[in-house]
């Protein structure tokens, strides 16, 4: 692929991404916060996000494929443990989880 083609693809990715955001703005004027439709689309958004995260943990694609399932589960477990022990300290929990992966993968 030539570098010019890659630039067009980046521009195209912006268009197909902003498409959803822009449509969202146009559609939102007709939706009330208390509407059932609002609650339904929230459910869809959260189910999608949960699917993405769950897939990253159980069936990752890309560079994470190099890691083992037990390593990813261990990292998640440690992050959760720290999160509850240290009163929902997000940064500390993230450090624990990321640190676990780094230590496990360190040669």
């Amino acid at each position: 692929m030539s570098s010019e083609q890659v630039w067009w693809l980046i521009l195209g990715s912006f268009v197909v991404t902003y498409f959803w955001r822009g449509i969202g703005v146009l559609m939102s004027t007709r939706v009330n916060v208390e509407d059932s439709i609002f609650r339904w689309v929230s459910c869809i958004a959260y189910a999608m996000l949960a699917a993405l995260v769950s897939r990253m943990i159980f069936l990752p694609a890309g560079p994470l494929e190099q890691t083992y399932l037990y390593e990813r589960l261990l990292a998640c477990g440690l992050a959760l443990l720290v999160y509850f022990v240290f009163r929902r300290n997000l940064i500390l929990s993230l450090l624990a989880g990321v640190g676990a992966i780094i230590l496990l993968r360190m040669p």
Partner: protein
Amino acid sequence: MSEEIKGGWWGGMQVALGVQGMIILTTCIGYGALARETGLSSWMAIASTGIIWALPSQLVFAELYLVSASGAAILLAVMITNMRFLPMVVSLLPIIRGRAPQRWRLFLAAQFVAVTPWAVAMRDCPKMNEEERLPYLLGMGGTLWILGTVLTGVGYLLAVNLPTYINLGLVFLMAIYWMLLFIDIRQREIVIAVICGAILGPLVYLQFPQWSLMITGFVGGTLAFFVDARLRNKGGGHEQ
């Protein structure tokens, strides 16, 4: 500028420079590093964060580029990955719109809607005055956007010295981050949606990798919505 509007901008910028900023900082550095491995140029990596502003789809882009997927396949994958922005923007905008918004501000705010700013705005905005909400999102989103774009370049430059095992940790950070956000959700239908999505996601992915996010979101979200409605009718004492 009224005090409320100033307070909104200021509050948003402060949130962006706090925990959320640190997370964006590390994820964008990780993405910059990953982009370098896939063979994108530094300006391509920086531009992709700056104009796409949706990290999961940027990872998809870089990954598919790495395996020489066709342009059409890349665009379709990015489009599918980012379809979640439609329900996200639709659910956030009624909260931040206020009484008489300027349209261009709403369209600008929509560009800043990515997972982290959205989750933070959904959490904080309902507790604020109406006039503060849109400036809050613009201040937070704008700050994160500038930081993230610059730090993608920083990550790209760092990648030369960043070993793979650190990169793996940085990529996995997003999964841990979202998992922790899910833990704090209390709204019943959303809790059910998250559980359905987490269970269905990998299963559907095995059968339909390209369409798994859309299928899972639609099926899991709809299921959660109806289960919640059913519990409500039974007088389950729904509070929120």
